[in-house]
């Protein structure tokens, strides 16, 4: 069973990685063709990406949106998580539900909601609209990670600080925030990576004026496939692997994803 089980896990992981391997191979084609194994392997499409102004503009848009959406999402999730922590009541529960809901619904619904909202306030097509929409859509992720971090705090620490005469803000600044900082960072990282990859909301809210990388890939898919899309895909996979790899290396990923009971 254990050997069979390991084989099962490896087969599934292999299936998940297969398309990515093929795409990485395709990105190495020397000619404008999608062959695998690559014909005439070269890195020319990697160079082509950097020298193509349109692709670089999309990359810049995506990075800026992801970076700002991450800041906004964490800024909203932090006070929400702190409020819900150690509070139990209708208001706290309603806030918690409101914070979790955006990520639980099919994104196309939120996307249409954002579209009609930004049309109504006259900001349709602006980058601010994309940033705020992403921050709202992804607020669930830092909310979950920060709440997890708060649940892991030993109440005795706070008790001790209180006894020593620290006020609410001092406790927050010197005890609570340093302890949950890793969870804020991982929450930020989740928002960053998912915003980078998000398509439907960015498209509905400002698809024709603010071109992000996923939108650019989809637009160019219509005119035929080129190895440069493979290059961009490799870039995305690399960013995700590096970010989550770092979290796994310096944090406790199983715990972050809810594996163990939080210490009580």
């Amino acid at each position: 069973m254990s050997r069979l089980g390991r084989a099962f896990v490896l087969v599934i992981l292999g299936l998940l990685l297969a398309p990515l391997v093929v795409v990485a191979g395709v990105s190495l084609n020397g000619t404008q063709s999608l062959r695998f194994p690559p014909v005439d392997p070269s890195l020319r499409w990697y160079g082509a990406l950097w020298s193509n102004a349109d692709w670089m503009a999309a990359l810049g848009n995506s990075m800026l949106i992801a970076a700002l959406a991450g800041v906004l999402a964490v800024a909203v999730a932090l006070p929400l998580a702190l409020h819900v922590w150690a509070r139990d009541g209708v208001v706290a529960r309603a806030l918690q539900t409101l914070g979790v809901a955006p990520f639980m619904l099919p994104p196309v619904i939120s996307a249409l909601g954002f579209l009609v909202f930004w049309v109504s306030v006259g900001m349709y097509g602006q980058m601010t609209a994309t940033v705020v929409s992403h921050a709202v859509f992804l607020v669930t992720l830092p909310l979950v990670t920060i709440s997890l971090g708060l649940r892991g705090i030993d109440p005795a620490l706070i008790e001790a600080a209180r006894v020593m005469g620290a006020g609410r803000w001092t406790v927050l600044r010197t005890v609570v925030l340093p302890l949950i900082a890793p969870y804020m960072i991982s929450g930020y990282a989740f928002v960053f990576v998912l915003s980078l990859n998000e398509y439907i909301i960015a498209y509905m809210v400002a698809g024709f004026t603010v071109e992000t990388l996923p939108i650019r890939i989809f637009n160019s898919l219509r005119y035929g496939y080129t190895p440069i899309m493979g290059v961009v895909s490799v870039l995305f996979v690399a960013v995700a692997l590096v970010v989550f790899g770092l979290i796994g290396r310096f944090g406790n990923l199983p715990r972050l994803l809810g594996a163990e009971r939080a210490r009580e």
Partner: protein
Amino acid sequence: MSAHRATPAWLALIPAAWLAVFFLIPFAIMLSVSVAHRVPGGFFEPGFEIDSYARLMTPFFGRILMTSVAVAAGAAAICVVLAFPFTVILAGMRARGQTLVLVVLLAVLSLSEVIIGFSLSTLLSRTAGVGNLLAWAGLIAEPRAYTPGLFALMLGLCYLGLPYAVLVLYPPVSRLDPELGEAARIMGASPLRVFWTVTVPVLRAPIAGAFVLVFVFTLGAYLLPQLLGRPRHWTLSVHITDQAIFQSNLPFAAAMAVVLLLVSLALVGVSLLLGRGGARA
């Protein structure tokens, strides 16, 4: 539990106001748009009419809704069937191995639908990937493409949903008391028997929950049906975007989104009820 309140109550007003303005109000506007009057060529003018909903009651859109539900339910079932044993084995691995697998899962989970669609259509294409490989191995005479079609679409949706299903099942599975299974083993049950008679029944509520979450998630897939499926496989999500962006019919798009929202909420409600029933049992 500490009674410590880290922040004063008024601080909650900031996130509350933020989410009310940018999450609840958009939904309210969407509701009002769904009953608004469409102005051909423009956007819409306020009003109250049910024309958009009436249009949904035609056989054409009935078929689209049925297709969406059938495709998403099929994908969710496959995902959960694969993800559950996967998660059980994963949770039994050493911490280091678990972290590695989780990093891969998160990386795949975060991948854009565009990239999944592009990767899979490359994998299933004639010149690169499976068709080529099978021809090379002599299993088929000529390399052929396996996309677009229902098979490719289902594969794509499962690819999208599987990491999600594993991550939803991971907390309850890893918190399962290992002594339960050990007790059954001591009584002489085979590992497979333990799996079917102990692990699966104990976790049936999380399994149902994972099914519903993946179902709702794949129901919202927008790009994969276009990249990997044929037009008759287009789901409600594709039609919502099509109506909103290309047909400029926001009221109709909003009406479809409201229907999709109700279907999703109903399913989430059912899963919550199932979860509560499971906890009581």
